[in-house]
């Protein structure tokens, strides 16, 4: 009587058995990794290379019959010398920096306050994180109504507090309020996300460190700056990285709130890029635009990640 393993080995056709037996560990590893690499190449790398190629042409995706010309660096030159695009970049930077500032300050403060034991702590945390569970489309429409000059709650409250007639100004219209209005909405929606990450950071600090500081008679203020802040900093930086990348490509919520207007006051780079690519159909030009944005985000993110690693190593 033969054992089952021997029987199975005998049943395996000789060439196949030899092939599998002959594979090195490295080859087997490649065999397992290959499908993922193939997908990565097909879905990420190939489109990127194709986009780079298109960025040097005048290709328009809606004009299949038009001859595609190689235009060299003309698309890049046009973009980098276009005042309108630089203005959009400034609008994006304004949105990015102020949302990050408010979200970090408010998010950290909320986390610090909530990181204590009190009755209703869990319920309060759940209520605070509600906005980030909503769809950006819902948030955009919802805040459009809140900002409506005649029936909106925001204008009504301003009138109640200041006496300024509600219908005399528009938060999403001309007057310079629109860039701040979108910052308010993004902050309202995403501060809970920063708060949660900070909360995770705060709760990861072992109690014995604070106890040791207490024994050394360190003040609460000193404990905060020498223990809490340094130990939460990597978490905070991670939150800034996530929110920074998300807000650099912010699209849906702002389109619903202002559509980039009034004029170009809230025209973020991502909205402008979409218009160039899928409304004006300047595929070559928008490919160059996308590459410039990609390099910008990639470059900034790389520098930031290095800084984050240094902070973590401390």
């Amino acid at each position, binding site marked *: 009587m033969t054992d089952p393993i021997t029987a199975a080995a005998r049943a395996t056709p000789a060439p196949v058995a030899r092939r599998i037996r002959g594979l090195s560990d490295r080859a087997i590893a490649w065999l397992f990794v290959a499908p993922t690499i193939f997908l990565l190449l097909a879905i990420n790398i190939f489109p990127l290379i194709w986009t780079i190629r298109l960025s040097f042409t*005048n290709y328009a*995706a*809606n*004009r*299949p*019959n038009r001859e595609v010309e190689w235009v060299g660096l003309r698309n890049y030159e046009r973009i980098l010398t276009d005042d309108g695009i630089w203005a959009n970049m400034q609008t994006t930077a304004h949105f990015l920096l102020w949302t990050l500032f408010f979200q970090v300050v408010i998010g950290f403060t909320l986390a610090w306050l909530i990181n204590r034991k009190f009755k209703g702590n869990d319920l309060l945390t759940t209520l605070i994180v509600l906005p980030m569970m909503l769809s950006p489309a819902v948030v955009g429409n919802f805040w459009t109504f809140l900002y*409506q*000059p*005649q029936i909106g709650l925001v204008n009504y409250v301003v009138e109640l507090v200041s006496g300024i007639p509600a*219908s*005399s100004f*528009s938060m*999403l*219209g*001309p007057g310079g309020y629109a860039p701040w209005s979108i910052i308010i909405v993004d902050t309202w929606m995403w501060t809970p996300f920063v708060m949660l990450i900070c909360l995770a950071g705060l709760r990861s600090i072992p109690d014995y460190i604070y106890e040791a500081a207490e024994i050394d008679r360190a003040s609460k203020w000193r404990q905060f700056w020498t223990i809490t802040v340094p130990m939460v900093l990597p978490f905070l930086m991670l939150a800034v990285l996530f929110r920074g990348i998300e807000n650099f490509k912010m699209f849906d919520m702002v*389109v619903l709130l*202002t*559509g*980039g*207007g*009034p*004029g*170009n*006051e809230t025209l973020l780079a991502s909205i402008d890029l979409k*218009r160039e690519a*899928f*409304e*004006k*159909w*300047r595929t070559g030009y928008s490919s160059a635009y996308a590459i410039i944005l990609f390099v910008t985000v990639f470059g900034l993110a790389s520098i930031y990640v290095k800084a984050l690693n240094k902070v973590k190593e401390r």
Partner: protein
Amino acid sequence: MKIRLMAAVSAAALSAATMAQAQGGELTLCWAAWDPANALVELSKDFEAQSGIKMNFEFVPWPNFADRMLNELNSGGQLCDLLIGDSQWIGGAAENGWYVKMNDFFDAEGISMDDFAPATVYAYSTWPKGTPNYYALPAMGDANGWFYRKDWFARPEIQAEFKEKYGRDLAEPQTQKELLEIAQFFQGREIDGKTVYGASIFTERGSEGITMGATGALYAWGFKYENTPGSYDMQGAVNSPEAVEALEFYKELYKTGTPPGYDNAYMEQSLDAFKSGQVAMAMNWFAFFPGLYADPNTGGDKIDFFVNPAQNVAASTLGGQGISVVANTDNMDGALAYVKWFANPDVQKKWWSMGGYSCHKAVLEDPNFVNTAPFAGDFLQAMGGVQDFWQEPAYAQLLLAMQERLHNFVVADQGTAQEALDGLIADWTEVFEDEGKL
């Protein structure tokens, strides 16, 4: 034996069903989601009954219509067999081979373009413009017009106050400047205990709104796209003193005669403002007028209509569409049969009676036409002086450039009208240079 019999019966039934489907088949007609589309669904039931072809419809809301449909055509999709596409698309659709050229079909079926209003044939069917190369059958005539609260205009106290202020009776404006005065007169006025405003106009930034609205003023002042048609010579035409004055007028109308927060408004917002009793006047496409007239709260004897007032010339912004056969259809015979059926004068008469704006002379030249609806006469008058935006293959770039320039000046208060129009020429020149036309 029993099993064999059942199999034979099943095969016969399947075969019969397949044959029936092949004879009739299905068609999908794509259009924007609005009142006339609903009327077309009803009208098309006659075609279904006659032909045995089942009609499906794909209606997309206006703000997404161009994006959705142009993507569909561009990707070679087979969603639509028939498309009622915007007039500006015809250049691109013809050059890219998205629409079937219909000359041979029209000749074979005896469909004559002479039977349709010339302005609609020019705008909705031909490419290159004005040449006898037809890519669509005029389906839905339309222009931008105005409507107002007739009941408010008729109130003696309002009449008296207006006459005292302007020295004339409050009536439908005959010029753009009269329109502005009326809008300013109603702005912030208390009527029935409610604050009302002058007019709702188009200010939308994202798609085509502010261009369609502002061109109502620009055309009325005599705005031209080129000094000589086909020359792309825009300097002095696009930024003429009349064009500058017209654009300044539109901004003044926006600033002094529209409801608060009205900075990104198009068709829907205009309708809402009027139906909710916020405004005395509103601009919108004639296509909506049957629905407005039928509205139980603000329609009937409370509403009346007028054509876009002239200033230097009588002119209106063209809307409307032609019906085209999508080249990629897998039911070409069915699609052409639908066009043939739709071109029939009797069908066109029914189309008008159901709320569609026929472009057929059998309808428009009927002596009784102006009595068929309170806006019928205005529609005829408007269609006599319509002007359209560029219909170039690069129309989307041209349109978005104008949207940006106009919105920046009118709504966002940036720069002057002269700078906006000079900038527009620079933008358009760049597009035409890229196109190899300059």
